[in-house]
C-alpha cells in the first residue's frame, strides 16, 4: 500500500482547515497541503514550525552593514583620503554622517536580496523548476491534502469521508500533473479541448474551435461552426452559460461534440482513425 497516495480535495478554505484538524486528531499523517492562497491558521493546524527566515534577514542585514562600513572606511579613509570641502577625511567617525545613506542602502540591499534568495532555495523555486502541485486546480480554487503513508486505506477513507470533502483521488506511484481544460485526461496521447479563435468578429463574438493535440509537438484546431461571445463560455465546464439566449440549443450541439470526442479518441487509440482525420469524425455530422 505504500506506493499509493491519497488526495483529499476541498473547495473551501474553512472546510480544509476543519478537515486538517479532524484528520490530524484522528491520527492521519498529512504529507503536504496545497492551497491557492495562504490559508490563515493552516500552519498552526499542521503544527508547522515557525519559519526562521526573518532571523536570517537580520543576519544578512548585519552582514550588509559591516560590508558597507568596511568598504567605505577602506576607500575613503585608508586607501585614498581626499580633502572634500574641508571635511574631516582622516577619521571615519567624524565623517560618518556623510556615509550613513550608503551604509543604510547596502544594509537593505543585503538583507532584502539574500533573504529572497534564501527563500527561493529553501522552497526550491527557480526558473525551469517543475511545479509539484498534484492537480492544477490547487492554484485556482481547490485545496488538496496529500497523504502518502497510511496502513488501512478503508479506515483512512472513512475518516476523510467524515469531512466536508469535494473529491478524493487515489493515485498509484507519483502523482502526474494533469492538463486543465481538457475533456479527457486518460493515458491516451491525444487530448482535445475547446479554445476560441484569436480573431474577433466586429460584433465582438468569436469562433469556438476544437484544438487537437498529440503528444508535445503536433497540434491543430478546427472551427465547430459555433460563434458566440466569450463571456458566455464557461471554460471549467465547457458549456455555454444560461445567460446566452440560445444556450439550450448550443449546449445540445456541444453535448453531441463531446460524446464524439470520447468515441473519437477511443477510435484513435484502437487505430481506426489517424490523428489528422480525427476532426473529420468529430465535426462531420
Amino acid at each position, binding site marked *: 500500500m505504500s506506493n499509493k497516495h491519497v488526495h483529499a480535495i476541498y473547495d473551501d478554505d474553512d472546510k480544509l482547515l476543519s478537515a486538517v484538524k479532524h484528520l490530524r486528531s484522528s491520527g492521519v499523517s498529512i504529507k503536504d497541503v496545497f492551497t491557492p492562497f495562504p490559508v490563515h491558521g493552516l500552519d498552526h493546524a499542521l503544527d508547522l514550525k515557525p*519559519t526562521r527566515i526573518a532571523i536570517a534577514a537580520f543576519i544578512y542585514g548585519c552582514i550588509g552593514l559591516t560590508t558597507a562600513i568596511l568598504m567605505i572606511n577602506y576607500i575613503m579613509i585608508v586607501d585614498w583620503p581626499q580633502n572634500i570641502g574641508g571635511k574631516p577625511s582622516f577619521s571615519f567617525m567624524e*565623517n560618518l554622517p556623510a556615509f550613513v*545613506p550608503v551604509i543604510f*542602502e547596502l544594509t537593505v540591499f543585503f538583507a532584502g536580496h539574500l533573504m529572497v534568495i534564501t527563500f527561493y532555495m529553501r522552497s526550491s523555486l527557480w526558473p525551469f523548476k517543475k511545479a509539484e502541485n498534484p492537480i492544477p486546480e490547487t492554484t485556482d480554487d481547490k485545496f488538496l491534502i496529500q497523504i502518502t503513508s497510511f496502513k488501512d486505506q478503508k479506515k483512512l477513507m472513512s475518516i476523510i469521508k467524515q469531512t466536508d470533502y469535494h473529491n478524493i483521488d487515489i493515485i498509484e506511484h507519483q502523482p502526474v500533473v494533469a492538463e486543465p481544460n481538457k475533456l479527457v485526461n486518460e493515458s491516451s496521447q491525444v487530448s482535445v479541448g475547446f479554445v476560441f479563435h484569436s480573431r474577433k468578429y466586429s460584433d465582438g463574438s468569436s469562433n469556438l474551435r476544437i484544438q487537437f493535440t498529440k503528444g508535445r509537438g503536433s497540434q491543430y484546431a478546427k472551427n465547430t461552426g459555433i460563434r458566440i461571445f466569450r463571456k458566455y463560455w464557461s471554460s*471549467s465546464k465547457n458549456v455555454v452559460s444560461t445567460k446566452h439566449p440560445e444556450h439550450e440549443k448550443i449546449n445540445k450541439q456541444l453535448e453531441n461534440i463531446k460524446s464524439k470526442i470520447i468515441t473519437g479518441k477511443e477510435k484513435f487509440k484502437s487505430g481506426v482513425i489517424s490523428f489528422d482525420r480525427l476532426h473529420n469524425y468529430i465535426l462531420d455530422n
Partner: protein
Amino acid sequence: MGSHYEAPIRKPLVTGNKSYHQITVDVARPIEGSANKQWWIVFGISLTLFMWGIGCIIYTVSTGIGTWGLNKTVGWAWDITNFVWWVGIGHAGTLISAVLLLFRQKWRMGINRSAEAMTIFSVIQAGLFPVIHMGRPWLAYWIVPIPNTFGSLWVNFNSPLLWDVFAISTYLTVSLVFWWTGLLPDFAMIRDRAVKPFQKKIYSLVSFGWSGRAKDWQRFEEVSLVLAGLATPLVLSVHTIVSFDFATSVIPGWHTTIFPPYFVAGAIFSGFAMVQTLLIVMRKVCNLEDYITLQHIELMNIVIMITGSIVGCAYITELFIAWYSGVEYEQYAFLNRATGPYWWAYWAMMTCNVFSPQFMWFKKLRTSITFSFVISIVVNIGMWFERFVIIVTSLHRDYLPSSWTMFSPTFVDIGIFLGTIGFFFVLFLLYSRTFPVIAQAEVKTILKSSGDNYKKMRDNHVK
C-alpha cells in the same frame, strides 16, 4: 464564518458576487484573450514615441550634451527634472505594497501589483537620464566603487550623487524581487490554466515552479512582511536622498532642510496620481471594476488630497522661512520664483499641486471617476513643474547679473522626455497583456471578509 468577520462599516473591496474560481477567471481573462484595436493603437503611439526618444538619445550621445538647451548658468534642467519626476512617480508602488501592508490596509490588494509594475517601469525611465547626461554612457560603470587602476580615483562617498546611485539601484532591485516574489503564485495560476504549449512553457519558467505548499506559503508571508519592513524605510530614503542632490548644495532655493519630507510627500503625491491615471483606464479596459472599485479610487483620492496638502504646506513654509531667515539671496530666490520671468511655471505648480487636490474634500467629486482622472493628470503636470521650478528658477539667476539667462529646451530635450513616456507605456501595456494585473492570491484571502456577497450574507445572518 467567524474568523472572516469584518466591521460592517467597511465597504466591500470585491464586488460582483465573486467566488474563488471567478477571481481566477477574471484575472486570467486579459492574458488569455487577445488585444483589441484600442490596445494596438495606444501601443503603436507609445512605440513611436519610444523610437523617437531612442533617436534623440543616439543624437545626444553621438553629438554631445550641447544638443540640449543647457547653458553655462543653467547646467541642469530637463534631464534632472525628468529624473526626479520619474523617481517620484516610482514611489507609489512600493508605498502601496509595503507601507499599506504594514498598516494592514486590505484595499492595497486590488492595486498593488500594477502600482509596483509602474514603480519598476518608471524607475527605469528615471535611471536613463543620469546615464545619458554622463555624455559617455559606456563609462557608466565608473559610478560603482572600483579600484583606481581603471585610471580614476575611487568614487566619492561624500557625494549625494553617489548616494543616489546606491539608493536608486537598491530601490529598483529590491522592488523588483518584491514584485516578482508576489507574482509567483499568480504566474503559477496562469501556468496551470494555460492550454497553449508555448504559453505553458513561458509561465512555468517565470513561476519558478511554485506549487503552493503550506510551508511555502508560510515562508512567502514572512518574506513579504520582512520585505515590507525593509522597503518602508527604503522608499522614504530614496526620495530623501534625491532631495539631498539639491539640499546639500549651497544654491539659494535648494539649500533647505525641509527638502527630504517635502520631496517624499511630493513623490507619494505624484505616484498615487499616476496609479490613478493608469488604473482608471485599466479597470475599464480589462473589466476589473469589481476589484478596483470606486472605494479604491476614493481612498487613493484621499491620499492625493492629503499629500497634496502636505506639499502645499511645504511651499508656504519655504516662502516663510526665506523671509524669516533674513538672507537676501534666499528671499530673492523665492520672490523671483513667484514673480520673476518663470512666474507662469510657479503658478502652474501652485494651481495643479495645491489648489486642485482640494476639490477632493467633496465626496461627490472624489467619487467621480472622470473628475479623478482629470485631477490625476493635472497633478502629474503640476509635479513636473514643481521640479522644473525648483531646478531652473534657482539656477537661472546667478550671483552675477551678467550670467543671468533663461532656459529653453531643444527638440532633443523634448524628444527624450517624450521617449521615456513612450517607453513607460510600452512596458506597461505589455505588462497589462501578459502579467496577472491583480494579486489574485492575495485578493482571494480577503474575499470572505471583504467580498460583497459574504458581507451581505453576514449582515442577513446578524439581522
